């Protein structure tokens, strides 16, 4: 489903060049739940941004669902982001002046769905995260865990093939973090591919696969799941 081969990303300033990713290769199958781990500055977030078409890359190839993602124009990359990829951020990134219903509605607007279709999807996705009774609430009226569930509902409403999560429990206490993880598990079991960046070992253990990134490259992979041990990590670097 997601194949990167030899992907590189360099951030340039007048004085220095920083190689955020070097010759990075990974293959992720449909339905996978992959945790991307590594120390700060190793290139995890850059990997996620490139996978989500939030940033361009300088070299290598990246295919999503067999479509080459190199050199897409803004319209095309926006369309793919909107239709095929869902995002969950550490800081939730909800719009504070919109209620839950309107927050989940935002990406659906760009999709061009009719009002009835949008309403159905919003209600379904909020129901799925257990917040259907609070549609008219503003984000500020919710706990951190609830806000993250709204963000997950927003990501799910468009029925994406790929869900990218960047430290989704980083701002949550352990109880709320567990609830969010349970939800991500459910979503993955329902067939959505998840790639999650995390520092959290527990979270990484709950993923079905793990990719460790160091200095912009795949360093090593260790599966914490027993079944994962039977299947080698599909690292192509």
């Amino acid at each position, binding site marked *: 489903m997601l194949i990167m081969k030899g992907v590189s990303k360099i951030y340039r300033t007048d004085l220095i060049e920083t190689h955020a990713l070097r010759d990075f290769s990974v293959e992720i199958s449909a339905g996978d739940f992959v945790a991307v781990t590594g120390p700060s500055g190793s290139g995890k977030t850059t990997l996620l941004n490139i996978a989500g078409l*939030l940033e361009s890359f300088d070299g290598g190839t990246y295919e999503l669902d067999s479509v080459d993602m190199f050199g897409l124009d803004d319209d095309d990359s*926006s369309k793919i982001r*909107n239709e095929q990829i869902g995002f969950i951020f550490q800081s939730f*990134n909800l*719009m504070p002046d919109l209620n839950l219903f309107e927050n989940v509605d935002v990406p659906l*607007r760009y999709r061009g769905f009719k009002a009835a279709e949008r309403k159905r999807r919003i209600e379904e996705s909020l129901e799925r995260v257990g917040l259907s009774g609070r549609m008219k609430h503003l984000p500020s009226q919710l706990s951190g865990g609830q806000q993250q569930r709204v963000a997950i509902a927003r990501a799910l409403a468009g029925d994406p093939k790929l869900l990218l999560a*960047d430290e989704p429990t980083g701002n949550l206490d352990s109880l709320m973090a567990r609830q969010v993880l349970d939800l991500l598990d459910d979503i993955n079991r329902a067939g959505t591919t998840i790639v999650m960046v995390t520092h959290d070992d527990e979270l990484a253990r709950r993923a079905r696969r793990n990719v460790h990134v160091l200095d912009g490259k795949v360093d090593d992979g260790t599966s914490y799941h027993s079944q994962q041990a039977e299947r080698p990590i599909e690292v192509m670097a």
Partner: protein
Amino acid sequence: MLVDSNLAYDLQLALNSVKKTPVLSALMVAAIGIGIGACMTIITIFYLMTANPNPDNSEEIYTYALHNHLTVTEGQEDERPRLMSTYRDALYILESDIPTDQSVHYQSWAVYRNSEDGVNPFWELYRLVTPGFFSLFDVPFLYGGAWTQEQEDSKVMVIVLTRETNDRLFGGENSVGRTVEAGGEFYEVVGVMDHFKPLPKYFEFDSGVFEEISGALVPFSLTPVIELMKNSGGRSCIETPEGDDFQSYLDAECHWLHHWVRLPTPEKREAFAEMLDNYSLEQRRFGRFQGPFNNRLFNLMEWLEYLEIVDGTMTMLIGVALMFLIVCLLNTNALLFAKFTGRSAEVSLKRALGCSKKRLLRQHLVEIGLVGLVGGALGLLLALVGLAGIKLLLTDMDDLANMNTDLVAIAITASIISTLIAGLYPAWRTCQIAPAKYLKSQ
């Protein structure tokens, strides 16, 4: 609230944004409103000064100017032709059957009395006109109508009152058939005009071009009968009349008559111009019309341009008002930069959620357009206040200081377009924000 149309959604977002930053929004609206208000105050007066005062007839009514100088001053061979006609030239041209309609007219003053009732006599303008005056200039009538050409030719003592004069003499009643004393003569009323105030009063440029026609009008053919000299507006004699009698005045080289003709086809226009040239050549043989040939024929709009009714001061005022608008728009531009910079995180998120740059730009332009619309409405209000102030200060600007629907549309459109221009760059810059840039910092 679910809104289906993208435009309606963008409007909803724009309204939310205005509510979120009320002070910035109010400052922008104020800046645009003041700029548009100042511009529209000046433009309203300019627009009405330069508007076509007789659109139905403007393409086919003409006035002429003969190059009828008696002598040529050295170094001034290209001197402008005289804009008013002599009595003898006007009478000659009146005889021509090339124009389908003609108006020769001049203005004077007279004392008016209602010979039947005890109305106090009053001093008011008094015009001598051929019946073509009413048709050429599209004069509206309240009662009755103009006198006929036969009555004109027969020098019948008839009169058409303006509405105001009829109000003063007859309390606004239908006075057709009644008698009026004007300038010591008795006339039968054949018509009462309705309000008639073409702006500007193009057919009589030598007095109060922005004033309403007042007093009354009587047949031009009565000029030698009642021996009434022109004593309102301009009159220039380039030789002293030979005698003291009225006929000597009529025969003298005095320019005092306005003369307009209707030439409905290009052929008629050409024939009339040729007739003027032939007449000038003939007069030259009698020792008149010396110097180069410079006869001119103007249609209405050419005439207004030639007269330069809109002078340089007005053009300069418009320039100043436009400069002021530009300053206001630069302020708006800076305020929009400040406003849009504050929403970088939101823009970044929207881009991440699949909003393209084009879609985002459109959303911003709708918001800017909304600010422009409200600013335009405020500008209109301020322009109305400005125009009311001008009316108070300058009474002859009364009818020029009024907005019509065209001007309202111009104000709103100008406001929206100018605000969009001011806001285009800040909006474009905002839409260039990389989708990943602010997602971590929220």
